[in-house]
Structure formats: C-alpha cells, structure tokens
C-alpha cells in the first residue's frame, strides 16, 4: 500500500473512518433531478438499512397548470406502484390578495383503501416560471414484514391561483410486504425539480 501524505492539512486517499469517529446520522442515499420528466422512481436504497427514510422535494415545478404532485409505493421493486393506502389530509391556504385564510380537512387528497397515487394535498399547482412546491416525506420502516408502512408528508406550494398552500398528509400503506420502491409524478403532465432520499441512521 502506498504511503499517504497530509495535503494542506487534509488526508488524501482516505475512503473510510473508524466507527468511533462521529459522523452525521442523516445519510444522503441518492438524488434525482427531474427535467420535464413524467416520473421519478427510487428503485434501490429502500431496505432494512434504515428505519426512517426522508425524501426532500426541492422546487418541484409542474409543466401543466392545475396538476398535482403525487407518489405511490411498490412491493415488487418498481414493477407496479399500487400498494393499498389509507390516509387523512388537511391544509391551510391564503391568497396573495389577502383572501382565503382557511384551515380545512382535504377530502380530495385522502385515500381509503385505495391503490391510487397519494396526492400531496394541493389541487392546482401553478406552472408559471416561478411557481413550485417544496416539502418532505417521511417513510417509516418500509422493509417491515410485520407492520403497515406509515408515512407523513408536508409541503408548501404556490398554487395556480396565487395561493400559498401548506398541506399535511398522514397515512399507511396497508401491507405487511416489504416496500422497496417509490415513484413520484404529476397527476397530469411532466415536472422539474430535485428529489433527495435520505436514511436516518439507527446505530
């Protein structure tokens, strides 16, 4: 093995640290960037390595006005995204002209034993150049073969009619099969944006 030398007080060629060295517990697993894309799917990385997975949505921009961002889960590594889900949803919104100011249960975005895609909670994303959605999705224990798979979703977006909309969705994939892939897409049309998948270390 060649000798390694300190280079400007950094160590070159090092690929691992001893386990005793503290490191971050929020581990970036992968990042995908949509550019006028129909879907983004994460088909690797969802396994028993972590108990909690976090997806971060950065500047998700609909190419078609009034579309809604959504996701579904797979138990067959992405061949099908059709897991049965039950969820509840609520949101608050306020318009740029000062109207609105509403907190309400969102009957459009909840699911009752449905295999359909889970909507993020907004019924009309804007497609103007500056409009987008940001938020996060927590997915708990996707690899469990004992329990259902809970998820908690929160997002904020600038809607097509100039509303600031904050949406909350909580639910479970009603399956005891391991969930090993997840897909994101618009209800109609394509989208842009960045999705990052993290794992939260458990040891």
């Amino acid at each position, binding site marked *: 093995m060649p000798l*390694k030398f300190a280079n400007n007080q950094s160590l070159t060629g090092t690929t691992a640290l001893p386990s005793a060295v503290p490191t971050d517990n929020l581990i970036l697993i992968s990042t995908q960037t949509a550019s006028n894309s129909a879907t983004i799917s994460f088909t690797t990385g969802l396994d028993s390595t972590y108990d909690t997975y976090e997806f971060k949505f950065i500047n998700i921009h609909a190419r078609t006005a009034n579309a809604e961002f959504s996701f579904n889960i797979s138990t067959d590594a992405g061949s099908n995204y059709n897991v049965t889900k039950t969820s509840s949803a*609520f949101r608050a919104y306020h318009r740029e002209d000062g109207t609105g100011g509403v907190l309400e249960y969102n009957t459009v975005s909840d699911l009752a034993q449905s295999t359909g895609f889970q909507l993020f909670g907004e019924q009309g994303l804007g497609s103007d150049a500056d409009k987008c959605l940001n938020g996060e999705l927590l997915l708990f224990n996707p690899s469990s073969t004992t329990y259902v798979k809970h998820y908690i979703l929160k997002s904020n977006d600038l809607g097509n009619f100039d509303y600031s909309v904050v949406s909350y969705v909580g639910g479970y994939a009603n399956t005891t099969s391991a969930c090993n892939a997840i897909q994101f897409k618009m209800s109609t049309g394509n989208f842009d944006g960045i999705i990052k998948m993290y794992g939260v270390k*458990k040891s």
Partner: protein
Amino acid sequence: MPLIKYNNQSLSSITTLPASIPTGKLKLISSQTASNSASISFTSGLNSTYKVYKFVFSNIHSRTDAVDFTFNLSTDSGSNYNVTKTTTFFRAYQNEAGTDTALEYGTTRDLAQSTAFQIIADTMGSDSDQSGSGSLLLFNPSSTTYVKHFISTFQNYQGDNYSIQTYVAGYGNTTSAVNAVRFQMASGNFDGTIYLYAIDNS
C-alpha cells in the same frame, strides 16, 4: 504524539475529529427497544450539550387495543415524571371505509397546567400489523431560564381501523432543567423502538 498509520485505507485509533471538520447535524444519542414493555425512559443524554433533541418513534405497537401513547418529563433524573404542562392537540383522520373524516381540535387530550402524561398518539390498535410512527422535538431541556417547548407529530393505525395524524405542542412549565423523558401507554404494554437524536448546535 504517536504516529497514526493507515489500516486498509481507514484511519485507525482516531476517535474524534477537529472541530473544523464537518460531521453533520443529526447525532444519535441512544436508542431503546420496547418488547412488551410498560415504559421506556431516557435518563441520560438530555443535557446542555445540545439545544434541540429529537425522539423518533419506529413502529410503536400497543399490546392493548385502543390505548393512547403518552410521555412525560422529569426534572430529577427520572425519580418523578410529573412536570406541569400546557399543550394543544389536534388531529386529522379517516377510516378505511372512507365514511368518516375529520380535522379537529382534541379538547379532552390537551393539558392545562397538568402534571399528567401527554397523549401523542391516541387509541392505538393492537392488531398484529397495527403500529404508529412519528417524532417529538424537545427544545433546550437544560435551560434554567425558560420553559421547555415540545412539538410532536405522529401517524397511527388506530384500533378501529382509522389512519390518524396527531399534532401536539406545548411546554413543560418549569425553569428547572429537564433531564429525563418517559414514554408509556395509558394502559398496558407496548413494542417498538425509540431513537434519541440531537441536533448539533454548530
């Protein structure tokens, strides 16, 4: 200073890094797993080292049907869990049949200057596949100046086959340092893992 030698391209014998080297913001302090347990208590690790602590609940499973999952705080290292609290509680739910939905404030589940345990997930199901997961943020527990705020988010498969999101926030109304937290069902035992993380100050 002894020489540090390379060991299969990892650095052996190093247990800390200089402060200038970034190591991330989320630190795992400890985890505990309940297995038909009456309670789980974190009696160490909550101190002035960090300003924000985060508990993550992974598949909390009640052994008794339709029982609430709760927590309380201690200012005496776990001898007593009875800190006075004032809180709010609201939830959204839907049943699997799709016939019952609501977004509502929980007037029977909030606390007003009470030392009782605070509900953070209500009426949890005990079927073999039923569980709940979520998180609890606890802010600056070691402060001797301010009250101790907390914010909880929980998603639960409820005993009557409802999906329920629960949001609880409040404060431990004490200027004593909080140094322990206990989690338990309102009745009966539970399974599941609870992780205690800290958000790095720097």
